[in-house]
């Protein structure tokens, strides 16, 4: 059961996801209180262990905010992150959970609006499910 105020962990790349979050805050955009933000040096540091552990600890969903393809400062961190997310989504389906509990979201640093929208969309998905 997902509560009215779902717990979402956002793993944020320091180069894109984190600035996007800060941007959303500076714009005063609505972000749910249940959002927990974890900064990572690169989207590629979002390891499968972290993502599953977050769900294991009780998060309703996990979002990975990383750079767009071709923009990774470390060449392939974002691609690795996306592949891990896809792997875990498949696994979630097999254990009877919605794959939407783990999503990969490429963002640009100055896209607070998009950050807030993506989080809101995730909240809607969770509550609708």
């Amino acid at each position: 059961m997902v509560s009215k105020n779902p717990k979402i962990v956002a793993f944020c790349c320091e180069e894109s996801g984190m600035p996007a979050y800060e941007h959303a805050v500076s714009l005063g955009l609505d972000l749910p209180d249940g959002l927990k933000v974890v900064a990572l040096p690169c989207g590629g540091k979002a390891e499968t262990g972290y993502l599953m552990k977050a769900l294991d600890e009780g998060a309703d969903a996990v979002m990975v905010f990383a750079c767009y393809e071709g923009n990774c400062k470390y060449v392939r961190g974002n691609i690795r992150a996306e592949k891990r997310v896809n792997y875990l989504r498949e696994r979630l389906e097999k254990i009877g959970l919605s794959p939407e509990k783990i999503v990969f979201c490429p963002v640009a640093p100055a896209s607070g609006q998009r950050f807030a929208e993506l989080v809101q969309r995730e909240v809607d998905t969770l509550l609708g499910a």
Partner: protein
Amino acid sequence: MSGQQAVLRIPAGTSELKEVSIQPSVIVAGDHPAGLLMAEHLADLGVAVTLMVPFPTLEEVVAPYRVIASADESVAGLLQEVAERVSQHAGITRVTQADLVDISGWWGDFSVQARIGEDLKTFHTSGIAMAYRGNPVDLPGIPVQEGVLPFTDFLSGINLQTGALAGKAESPKQVVFLLDAGERDEKWASVAAIRVGVFLKRKFGTQVFILCRELKVSVDEMEQDYRAARESGIIVFKYRQTPRVEKGSGGLRVVFEDAAAISSHGPSEITLDALDVVVAQERLGLSEDRAEVLRKLRIPLEDGVAGPNNPQFTGRTPKKGVVVAGDAWFPEYPTDAAMTALSAAQELYKWVGKGTYQVDAYRVAEVDPSKCATCLTCFRICPHDSIRVERYGERNVYITQGAKEGATWEAARVKIETCDGCGLCASECPAKAIQLIYYPDMEVLDFLAKNL
């Protein structure tokens, strides 16, 4: 509410600074004029430069660009005399008929193997700049046949005095430039076709046709040059599908559908007949042995060149202390290639010019050799080629009974001088043997435990 969320930030600051001294020396290698420009720039800044070119003279490095230089003053200004200046520069050691074969090591301590004539010789250097010409990989969509010349062959084969192509007595009556049949977004051929086209038309009266999908004019002064081309009688067509090139009566024949024509009678097909020569823009890529040198350093290539993977950092590669320019970076018009070369040289100067550097031994990854299974995952995934397997661990998982006291075991080791602390290795390590010193897993796991 915005800003009310629990946030785990990456710990700021540093604790462990390590001083390393780096000899201000570089090896610049390659057959592209960008190499000469980088060598000159770095030598002017006081770096000890060893320049390796695969030819007997430096003049041969710029020779294929003489036609463009004749047609374009700004290129002439760059290339004229650069070979001469570099050949006399006191700060540059010149090694001719030399080609890089292999590179190993790290920023500040590279070992470079070069073939000089018949011999192999090893050099040591702090930094490396590579500037290679692209080799024609293929002519996209056009069958190779007599009379169809790759653009670079045309540029290097034409006689500036007579306008004649290699093996011919007189200048061709017409030239067709067939552009951007490939997928990659390159501008050099558009610019070169316009400028060289005007030059040929004015000097030798050559009739020039330019066939393109799109003419890329987003280059300095190209609007004026395009106008000059139209005024001097150069005809530009836009085609939809790659034109057919076939043998016709009295020369080559090019047939294509004119994308600009508006006709009520269906597609409008245009035929150019009795042509002497069709110059086709080829796809340029690094030769296999040069690509192999880059791959060994884990510099990713896309479509045979290093640029597209690294759009933010001109000339810079993920391997600290190595820069790439010329077509090896991306096929560019000479003036653009010169800009790339200069920023690449400055990037390299940043890494080898200062003498001493403070390296942060805290914001890096560290391997626990006793847990390392030497699976090579980190070695393979490190974007900066900063991890090697060395024999230094006191024990590892393969330890057996009766091992000698003081024996050491192989384990991965991070070279802290070139580690950027991205954490890719730590997140992939199947044995959980790698941690970011400044941001260990426990920080993240504790945060999750406390806030969920």
